[in-house]
């Protein structure tokens, strides 16, 4: 039995049945990290000592019958923008390079209550701003399928850690595709839930109206299982929603008969790599053969999503990142003259180029004289985009398309042209603007040997439709080779 090949849910069962101990699983993951981390750089921080200690504590609670849940004892990796009490949390930025939170984010607490063993904090694009994990201040993460390629981003460390078997599952965050796109590039499953489903308390904010935490994992069963644990109503997050329908595993049903699936023509046009297109259409065909009703339709407004997104995200980022001022925590410049010069120098030295670019743009679109023309205009277009999805979901249960126009690009290819990098988000950002859930699941491998992702988008609160369709597809597709597997 190779422990590392197990899914999170199957490992928890094995632990419960005393076939594997929590310590075995934790040590297996730590050994794997020792072997491959120097190549992939999935983590900013590996908490070896803490993990071994947690393993003992969790095992004791399982043995005492206090922990009986479906993830008890399973090692997990957390994206480094979620606060973890007593454990370095950097957002992959120099400005938070020494920040040790005094509290944990709600999603992490929910995992800990369920008996998770936290292995460490995963690498990401600085402040989640990027699509490749190359804007990290602590070096880029490499794609386990081919280390010359990026893992995607911004949750690239989380996706790569799952693919490289350096954890059993991970948490990521998704502001414009930051869970789904790296999941696609690394051949794992990722879900961005409906806005408000997972508490954002303790998630270091980028674009608050768009950010949402979700799982990156090995299969759809794990995805539903993790969602049941992390979804919660949290009074500490005023945008948190009270939901009664969070029994996501009830949707793990191999039946899509009569499910209406829409393929937006706008998602299959110019710019889409032919191999990605073929693989995604084949997946649609599989669902059709299983009884789903699949048809094409025009979603409209797709080309307006990116400019809308970057206006809103930059505006919110410029406001959210005002708190990094070199006073209460984080980096402070050595040499300064007076308070304002200290603020400016600390921020200019502490933030990387992409973060500064977005703060500048955001400050501009919010400034008096430009606010109406840019920021309010974007919020009006957002309303139109939401309406277009409302119309679509009157006809369809699920929208099916690609996650990204291509498979993972080579390292260094994307950052030279920011606008081009932003265009890679075209199929994912609309879900954030409209608050919708979106799921990414592997559906093929291209001729270069890199995984291709299929995206399923649902109406608000309809994660179960996505889980059901993804589960049915997964049953037909069969096991997807995972890179670290032997």
């Amino acid at each position: 039995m190779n422990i590392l090949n197990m899914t999170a849910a199957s490992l928890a069962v094995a632990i419960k049945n005393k076939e594997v101990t929590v310590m075995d699983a934790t040590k297996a993951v730590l050994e794997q990290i020792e072997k491959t981390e120097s190549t992939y750089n999935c983590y900013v921080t590996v908490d070896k000592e803490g993990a071994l200690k947690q393993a003992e504590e969790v095992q004791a609670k399982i043995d005492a019958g206090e922990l009986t849940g479906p993830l008890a004892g399973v090692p997990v990796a957390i994206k480094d923008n979620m606060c973890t009490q007593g454990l370095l949390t950097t957002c992959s930025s120099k400005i938070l390079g020494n920040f040790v939170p005094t509290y944990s984010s709600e999603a992490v607490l929910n995992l800990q209550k369920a008996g998770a063993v936290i292995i460490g904090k995963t690498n990401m694009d600085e402040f989640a701003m990027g699509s490749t994990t190359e804007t990290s201040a602590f070096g880029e993460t490499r794609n386990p399928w081919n280390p010359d390629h990026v893992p995607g981003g911004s949750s690239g460390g989380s996706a790569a850690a799952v693919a490289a078997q350096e954890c059993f599952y991970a948490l990521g965050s998704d502001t414009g595709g930051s869970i789904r796109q790296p999941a696609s590039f690394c051949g794992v499953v990722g879900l961005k839930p409906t806005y408000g489903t997972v508490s954002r308390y303790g998630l270091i904010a980028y674009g608050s109206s768009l950010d949402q935490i979700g799982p990156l994992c090995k299969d759809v069963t794990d995805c539903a299982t993790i969602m049941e644990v992390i979804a919660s109503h949290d009074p500490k997050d005023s945008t948190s929603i009270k939901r009664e329908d969070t029994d996501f595993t009830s949707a793990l049903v191999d039946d899509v008969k009569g499910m209406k699936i829409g393929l937006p023509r706008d998602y299959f046009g110019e710019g889409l790599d032919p191999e990605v297109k073929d693989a995604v259409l084949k997946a649609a065909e599989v669902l059709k053969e299983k009884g789903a009703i699949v048809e094409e339709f025009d979603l409209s407004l797709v080309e307006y999503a990116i400019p809308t997104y970057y206006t809103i995200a930059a505006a919110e980022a410029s406001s959210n990142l005002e708190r990094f001022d070199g006073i209460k925590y984080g980096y402070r410049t050595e040499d300064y003259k007076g308070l304002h010069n200290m603020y400016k120098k600390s921020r200019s030295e502490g933030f990387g180029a992409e973060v500064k670019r977005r703060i500048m743009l955001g400050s501009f679109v919010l400034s008096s004289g430009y606010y109406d023309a840019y920021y309010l205009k974007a919020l009006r277009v957002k309303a139109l985009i939401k309406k277009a999805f409302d119309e679509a979901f009157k006809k369809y249960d699920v929208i099916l398309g690609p996650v990204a126009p291509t498979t993972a690009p080579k390292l260094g290819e994307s950052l030279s042209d920011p606008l081009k990098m932003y265009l890679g988000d075209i199929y994912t950002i609309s879900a954030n603007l409209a608050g919708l859930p979106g799921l990414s699941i592997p559906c093929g491998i291209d001729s270069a040997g890199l995984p291709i992702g299929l995206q399923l988008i649902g109406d608000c609160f309809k994660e179960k439709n996505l889980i059901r369709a993804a589960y049915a597809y997964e049953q037909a597709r069969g096991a997807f080779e995972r890179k670290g597997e032997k």
Partner: protein
Amino acid sequence: MANIISDEIIEYVGILAKLELSHEEKQEAKKDMGRMLDYIDKLGELDTTDVEPMSHVFPMQNVFREDVVTNGDTREAILKNAPQEKDGMFVVPKTFD
């Protein structure tokens, strides 16, 4: 490029953003911002008269709670993160002479 960003605008945005950019960074920022705004101008193609700006996708209301302390005293741990502290307080540069 339709949007020409002047030196004055970059200076002004630098003040708003509390960023001190080098000469090269300013030149770069002018180019980047101009390109991004050209791209964002695409939104002008859409008629949004009578469309209300949507800040949240769900009807959100302010959430109120009683003003009760629920967390303990974490002053020591919080101050550990401070770049400079003295006698249990944050140290900031002189704000006026």
